């Protein structure tokens, strides 16, 4: 694509430099005065630890592994997210379990281990899209940092509880034995 460069002919006034410089100074002084009389809270800068940005819906931040109302994990360890992940940072180990009250024998599946390496994750949201059970969400927490690499590896219980405080839910640290068959629960 060709671009036509327009040559601007400067008038004599512009070529003296003095007048354009004064015009420029008027502009910068206008900004200066305007900011002098605006409180810092009202300026464009968001002063981070004190003020935080409004996170738009659909933002891709820290993951959450969703749970049912009774606290059981929604994930069925289908490995779809692990396959979809372009950064290869999800690793899952599946296990069988039995909801003894409803069916006999081991016939349900869930992850025994589920870990995401947050240092590798690029927050692309592919895992969320791939998940057939809507069990993994990327939500609005962007303050993911730690002092060492190991604590950036989020395990199953970390991921289940990432938004527990924000949502006002209890932290859960062990799998609850389901009381209702999975398929009957409405999401």
């Amino acid at each position, binding site marked *: 694509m060709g671009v036509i460069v327009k040559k601007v002919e400067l008038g004599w006034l512009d070529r003296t*430099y*003095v007048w354009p*410089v004064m015009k*420029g*100074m008027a*502009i*910068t*002084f206008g*900004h*200066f005065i305007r*900011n*002098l009389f605006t409180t*810092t809270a009202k*300026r*464009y*800068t968001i*002063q981070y630890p004190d003020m935080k940005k409004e996170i738009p819906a659909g933002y891709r931040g820290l993951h959450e592994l969703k749970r049912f109302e009774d606290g059981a994990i929604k994930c069925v360890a289908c490995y779809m997210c692990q396959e979809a992940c372009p950064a290869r940072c999800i690793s899952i180990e599946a296990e069988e379990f039995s909801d003894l009250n409803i069916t006999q024998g081991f016939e349900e599946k869930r992850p025994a281990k589920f870990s995401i390496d947050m240092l590798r994750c690029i927050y692309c949201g592919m895992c969320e899209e791939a998940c057939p059970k809507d069990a993994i969400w990327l939500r609005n927490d962007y303050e993911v940092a730690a002092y060492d690499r190991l604590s950036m590896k989020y395990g199953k219980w970390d991921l289940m509880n990432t938004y527990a405080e924000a949502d006002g839910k209890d932290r859960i640290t062990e799998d609850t034995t389901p009381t209702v068959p999975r398929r009957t629960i409405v999401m």
Partner: protein
Amino acid sequence: MDMLASLLHMTPAIFWMVVKVVIVFSAIMLLASVWTWVERRGSAMIQDRIGPNRAAIFGKIRIIGLAQLLADGIKFFFKEDLVPEEANKGLFWLAPFLAFVPALIGFAVIPFGKSFVSGGVTYYLSVLDPGNGMGLLYPLAIGGMAVYGVLLAAWSSNNKWSILGGMRAAAAMVSYEIGMSLAVVTIFMTTGGYDPAEVIRAQGHLPWAWNIVHQPLGFIVFFTCMFAETNRLPFDFAEGESEIVAGFNTEYGSMKFSLLALAEYSHLMTASALVATLYFGGWQVPFVQNPTVMLSVASFLLKMLFFAWVFVWIRWTLPRFRYDQLMHLGWKVMLPLSMANLVFHAWRMSQGH
């Protein structure tokens, strides 16, 4: 005052001198360091930012970011003082001082207030009393020395970017010195003397009698050249951080760097004091025939700080010139302009004005 002097076993004259030296130079250093804050906050406001406001004393007292000065000072003190392996160590150490001292002592002859008589003795409010024979030639000559510190800093650090910056500074200096000198010479000519006290007295207390009204062209040339001389944007070729890393102070760190920075701001203060003295009537208070000493000092400070602010203001308004534009401006515009200014005023004087 005599009592204090005798307590310290000094003659009153020497005591007065010491007092002046201490007050003037510490005031300039203080102003220079405060001006780093003004520059940062001012630039932030000009660019719709906020600027440094988080440094706090005891985690509480923020005083609109002024605590940043202390924080910076402490940080600079505790930083590791690196000297490049291949650097010329002696000169590398010396250079910040050579940049700092001329920037500071140029102020020595500038009167910052009206002289007053006390006990039959006239006290002049300038470090060197008028009639010292050097007059305004002294700050000009010393100002020329300042580039030496920059060049030396660049040269001794044995870094290609630094030497480029240093060479540019030297070249800019040479091309702007002449135009500036000619502008000043015009003032000497119309005043009939080169003593700052005389220059100020000749301008009087009426704003339309000041040199700015008579010689606006000279003012523009002089002020522009001051930018080149103090190495500030739009003429900060010595630093040029987008082109040559950080120019002459690439290799500098810790206190040496802060001394270079302080040198820049002290130079800025001296330059603004010069502008105020030469073109804006120095300590003269507009429309006041016989101001009190305090009023005259306040007036001088106000003018000086205003020009120091203009230095900051222009820095954040204009982009850096290209090197060839600088040369073009220096040799083909500034020099002929100041020459024309000189010739015009010589002609006017010959006509008896």
